């Protein structure tokens, strides 16, 4: 049987690159639908990690010996690769962080502390992850600034006119999620950015969910900051990037103090290194950064457009199939979505649903997905969420949907 799908990708061949997929859980073949939490890693990424530790583990930047040079080169290769991946003007605009949360906190602690003052306003959306809410709440508390929230409609899309009403000369920052982790909604970020710039506000994009699914072009988008995590895009955990425009990064103070971020240190004062090193204090997560390059290679070799086409097919299929389940309601029905199917079933709690699906070998996530205000907005406690990656298939969706039919028949009150 051919395993080539409409986008031309050979899904079986892709699955073979992921060792973790070939196992049974609870006596059933594993179906991994928790990709929005973290995607699985191809062998090339895993090999890069072991290759580094087995072949050239060494601290980077200040070493003159051969291994240090090799590690530094590999580390900086990822920076150049990330520059291509998001199409930034320069590699120096790429800062390595622990991930999206760390990237957002970096902006709050540096840009926020320097440029946001009492009475200034920060705008976010109702569908933000806690990572893009709490850092701003902390900052607002410290500075006496005000957090404004763009409301959403029933489908889970922002109401653009309401956003326009919130914008004013007081707006200093608009920080929005590119694609929602709970709903899948893809926000009209180009329009959001253009509007924010009209009032002189800067824009941060939370690209955590977008990175693996949408072509990122920071120059075309004209965003001021972009945050993303490697592990949601087939890369290792514990690393991610913050992109910032050079002219802004140069104006903002360092994030943490320590090694590598300095030019000269004396007890009378310290001068700081140039970007991006000014923001990278301490020994970074060398191995994971190096391996991240291979994740970006994996994505670009398949082609994001091809990946998106396959995932959109999966999303359309799951959307129609899930609706055949008695009592099931989809949460998040935006026109433009990444491959996330969030749902609740009347009469069965989402935790029970998740456990029962797990017993059938299907891994989904249940709960509020770190978006409690969004759940409150829909008046629900949480959802079950199936999120698809390039290695998933329609046959796997069939197993999940059959499982749900069975669960509903047996347990729905």
């Amino acid at each position, binding site marked *: 049987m051919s395993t080539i799908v409409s986008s031309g990708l050979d899904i079986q061949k892709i699955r073979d690159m992921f060792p973790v997929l070939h196992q049974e859980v609870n006596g059933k073949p594993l179906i991994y639908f928790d990709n929005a939490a973290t995607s699985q890693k191809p062998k090339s990424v895993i090999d890069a990690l072991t290759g580094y530790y087995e072949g050239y583990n060494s601290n980077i930047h200040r070493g003159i010996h051969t291994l240090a040079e090799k590690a530094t080169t590999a580390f900086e290769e990822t920076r150049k690769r990330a520059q291509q991946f998001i199409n930034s003007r320069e590699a120096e605009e790429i800062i390595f962080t622990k991930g999206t949360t760390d990237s957002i906190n970096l902006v709050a602690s540096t840009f926020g502390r320097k440029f946001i003052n009492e009475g200034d306003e920060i705008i976010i959306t109702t569908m933000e992850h806690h990572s893009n809410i709490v850092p701003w709440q902390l900052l607002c508390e410290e500075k006496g600034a005000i957090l404004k929230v763009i409301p959403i409609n029933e489908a889970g899309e922002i109401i653009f006119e309401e956003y326009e009403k919130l914008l004013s000369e007081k707006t200093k920052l608009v920080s929005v999620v590119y694609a929602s982790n709970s709903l899948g909604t893809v926000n009209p970020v180009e329009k959001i950015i253009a509007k924010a710039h009209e009032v002189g506000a800067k824009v941060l994009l939370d690209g955590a969910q977008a990175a693996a699914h949408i072509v990122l072009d920071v120059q075309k988008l004209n965003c001021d900051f972009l945050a993303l995590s490697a592990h949601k895009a087939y890369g290792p955990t514990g690393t991610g990037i913050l992109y910032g425009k050079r002219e802004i990064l140069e104006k903002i103070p360092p994030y943490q103090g320590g090694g590598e971020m300095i030019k000269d240190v004396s007890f009378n004062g310290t001068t700081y290194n140039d970007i991006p090193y000014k923001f990278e204090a301490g020994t970074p997560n060398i191995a994971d950064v190096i391996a991240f390059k291979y994740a970006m290679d994996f994505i670009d070799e398949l082609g994001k457009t091809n990946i998106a086409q396959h995932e959109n097919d999966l999303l359309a299929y799951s959307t129609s199939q899930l609706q055949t389940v008695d009592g099931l309601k989809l949460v998040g029905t935006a026109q433009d979505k990444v491959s996330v199917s969030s749902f609740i079933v009347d009469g069965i*709690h989402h*935790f029970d649903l998740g*456990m*029962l699906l797990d*017993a059938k070998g299907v891994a989904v996530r249940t709960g509020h997905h770190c978006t409690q205000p969004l759940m409150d907005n829909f008046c629900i406690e949480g959802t079950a969420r199936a999120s698809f990656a390039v290695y998933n298939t329609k046959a796997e969706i069939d197993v999940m949907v059959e499982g749900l039919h069975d669960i509903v028949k047996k*347990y729905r009150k």
Partner: protein
Amino acid sequence: MSTIKEIQEEIIEDFSMLDGDMEMTINYLMELGETLPELPEDKRTEENIVKGCQSKVWLTAALENNGVKFEADSNTAITKGLVSLLVRVFSNQAPKDILDEEIFFPQQIGMNRFIGTQRSNGFAAMIKQMKLYALALSAQAVK
């Protein structure tokens, strides 16, 4: 009346018949949960919620004939089944026994394998809460 130790042994025996099958175990837990009477609305209060559980668990205790009467409920069916096991083990036992006796059945029925660490933590929180109730009621019991 059976002792805490004897009831735990009965539970281990019951679960051994499921042969480690996850679906059957969940099914059994959900059935057990259904046998637990629903807690009246006025007892489903914020202060009766057991802290540390992912799903909501309400737990109350009162002294009756020198034994502790536990009532519990949960908003999720599997958790309700789990809590029903603890109610079965501890209900009507003397506060001192609840405090002294060792709880060994969760490991023996492979609770970790079936429920995972997140729920096991919640399970530990439930046991702790039941022991705290027993401690509070022990002063009343001896009088």
